[in-house]
């Protein structure tokens, strides 16, 4: 299972990077969203997908049966942070479109004025 997951994660990353390299701001934001999804799955897979019961202490379950709790804790933090970043990006895109009238990154380059 882990090998199939690894390939799927690689695919997610590939799609994310390809989107981030496009010129539309919205696509870049979608790309970062995909990238964080990929990262979460990567964390989960790296810890191993074994374990027969969720990491909640229960009677009759031996320690080795729990799924690995550490990646889960890290992912939980990461989900929230990635949400914060995505919402920030969205508002940034919204405001810059309002101010500048475009979301095309090729038109947003600002180096011409600095001589």
């Amino acid at each position, binding site marked *: *299972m*882990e090998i*199939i*997951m*690894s*390939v*799927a*994660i*690689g*695919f*997610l*990353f*590939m799609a994310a*990077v*390809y*989107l*981030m*390299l496009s010129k539309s701001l*919205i696509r*870049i934001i979608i790309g970062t969203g*995909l990238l964080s*999804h990929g990262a*979460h799955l*990567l964390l*989960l*897979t*790296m*810890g*191993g997908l*074994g*374990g027969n019961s969720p*990491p*909640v*202490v*229960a009677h009759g379950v031996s*320690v080795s049966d729990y*799924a*690995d*709790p*550490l990646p*889960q*804790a890290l992912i*939980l*933090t990461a*989900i*929230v*942070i990635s*949400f914060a970043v995505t919402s*920030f990006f*969205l*508002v940034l895109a*919204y405001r810059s479109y309002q101010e500048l009238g475009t*979301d095309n*990154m*090729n038109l*947003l*380059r*600002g*180096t*011409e004025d600095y001589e």
Partner: protein
Amino acid sequence: MSFVLLIFLPLLAALFVPLLFKKVGKIHTGWFVLIIPVVLFSYYVSLLPTTIHGGNLVSEFQWIPSLDIAFIAYIDGLSLLFTLLITGIGALVVLYSIFYLDKHREQLHNFYVYLLMFMTAMLGIVQSDHLITLYLFWELTSISSFLLIGYWYTRDRSRFGALKSMMITVFGGLMMLGGFVLLSIMGGTYSIRELIPQATELVSHDFFIWALVLVLFGAFTKSAQFPFYIWLPDAMEAPTPVSAYLHSATMVKAGLYLVARLTPIFAISGTWMWLVASVGLFTMFWGSFFALKQKDLKGILAFSTVSQLGLIMSLLGASAAGYHIDNIAETTFKYAGFAAIFHLINHAVFKGSLFMIAGIVDHETGTRDIRKLGGLMSLMPISFTVAVIGAFSMAGLPPFGGFLSKEMFLTAMLSLTEFDLFSMDVWGILFPVVAWLGSVFTFIYSFYFVFHTFAGEHKPDQLPKPAHEAPIGMLISPVFLALLVVVIFFIPNLIGDWLVKPAVLAMQPFLYDSPEEIKIHVSAWHGFNPEFFMTLGIFAIGFLMFWTLRKWQKSYDLFPEAISLNALYDNMVFLSDTGANRFSRIYMTGFIRSYLVYMFSFVIFIVLGTLFLTDAFAIDFTNLAPVGFYEIVILIALVGSTFTILFSKSRLTGIIALGAVGYSIALLFVIFRAPDLALTQLVIETISVALFLLAFYHLPQISRKEERMRFRFGNALVAIGVGVTVTLVALSSLSQKAMPSISEFYKETVYKEAGGGNIVNVILVDYRGFDTLFEIAVLAITGIGIITMIKLRLTKKEDQHENK
């Protein structure tokens, strides 16, 4: 008393200067500042009795003990001499500045803060025994000099001069730091005192010659030696008190101090002697020759300072000969070191007074252009007298201090012809010849300075202000210095015993045990010897050439400006500026895509490189979880939605597909036994999709636009590279565990230690509570950022660039 802390007294006082300037505006801030150098000078004078007999004092203050860096103040004859110059001339300059700088118009607090900062830095240089702190103070003088030259920062020339001096001296300082590091590698210590006894072993070390050259870079740039002198004339844009203090009496002598201080370590080498003596002597000639081209009073003095520094530098180089001579006390080689220190004192005194006179002329007539000046003798009699005394001392005329040291300079240069090492027996004859030529031009420019300003025809119509004598307060300092010039001539041996000989002892510790062993008696009359006839020649030729100056001075303009050192500097600055700009333009395209491509390419490169170098490609197929039906179905949905994002024309479809990816992941979390994650993911994904749609609602033009993403091969290549890299990392991290996971600890202790059942939650709020705290902080910051972006409306302002 731990006098090392006294170094920091001026810096401490500088903290109060802005307060005094703002609150006690009625009294000129300079009066308060004056207290500092006066107090310091009186204290340091009280240390004189120790050093007169060759004693020394050490005071330490730990700074970074773990790196073995400490402020160590080491007072011997040499450092005390410089200390007295710094505080003594400092006091006179502050006094002079009180009358020079107007308390209503000038930014006095800036000026005095910089000046006090400089005083600390300079005291630090001459007292530091530790090479690293010495370097620190060295750079601090460059910085304070930069600030002082740029004091009138609205003037273009000031800023240009400040930058130029900073570039050149800091370049030298960095080279010097390299030399210091090499020295410490060779000797195993940063302490100068501990390095000196190792001199004989150091000289055979491979790094020795590198250390020598690098240290000399520092000394030559700071002391304005050829070809680095070009910053000094431009530094004359500073207020005149600064020129008198930094750029003639103290800072530019830091290089001389360094050479003198490190002479015991390096002087055994012939390279040292050749470099120091010949660069110094050539600078002396070059500076005096081009001083006559100058039209600006301070310009003449700047070139004259360059020339005089070269003179002292060449004497320091010549003093190295003493290390190769047996029984030095019986030969003429003993004079070079003595003459160097003696002339250094004389120069500080007479050049200080001359700069102050130049400042007075500028202040009272409104111009420093020597072509407009003339005939001020009757209008400014006191200034004229001071100028004559200073200039005659510089020219080497009796009865002034400069005459004595100039004679001794000629003696030392003549002695080099008798030196038979390092092929001096062939080339040595050049030294007295060049020295004589330089002295002739020195004589001419000294007269040029005085008589073209004060004698000749008065041209009141060309002066911006009607000329008159300066106020008495402004005259105190130059008159005092002029008196000193005369006094030194009559008591040279007192000066010699008290100040010069202890300093020479520090320069040549292997040759003498105590200052009393240096058998030198200075006398004005020393018989009909070669020096006497050389001096007569200087006076005669010099006077003749001065008389005919107007006829040949124009020939200086034949020298093309385009191949001068200044042009070289300008071109270098210009090229590095535009060159760096062009280079940046090549890759700083302004497209975010380019930057991301750089970053991702580097990620691929570094990660794959690490995998390859550590041989981590191995894949382990044991311990894998079984492949399940539901997982495969969900993964197919996930990959399918991702494809939809990539190929959808409408952005709305893309967003909905992104939501589908998120929900598939939530389902995966359920299957992989992570209920908390699944819950969180579902909630967050719902909000995210809502947010995306909300943003789209407000951006109607964008949401309606339909376009297919064009396929770009380069982007695809980078994307595939990243994907493959991540897959490889995932696989190899599965099969290789460098250390046991901490998860086992959490699983075992969660109930006993933390009293919780849900391991994930306990980790978040207990074991890794701070992580969660910072996570919340990030959320809060984002929230503030979002509110700011939505609420805040900045009005657009026009760019306000000073230089446009």
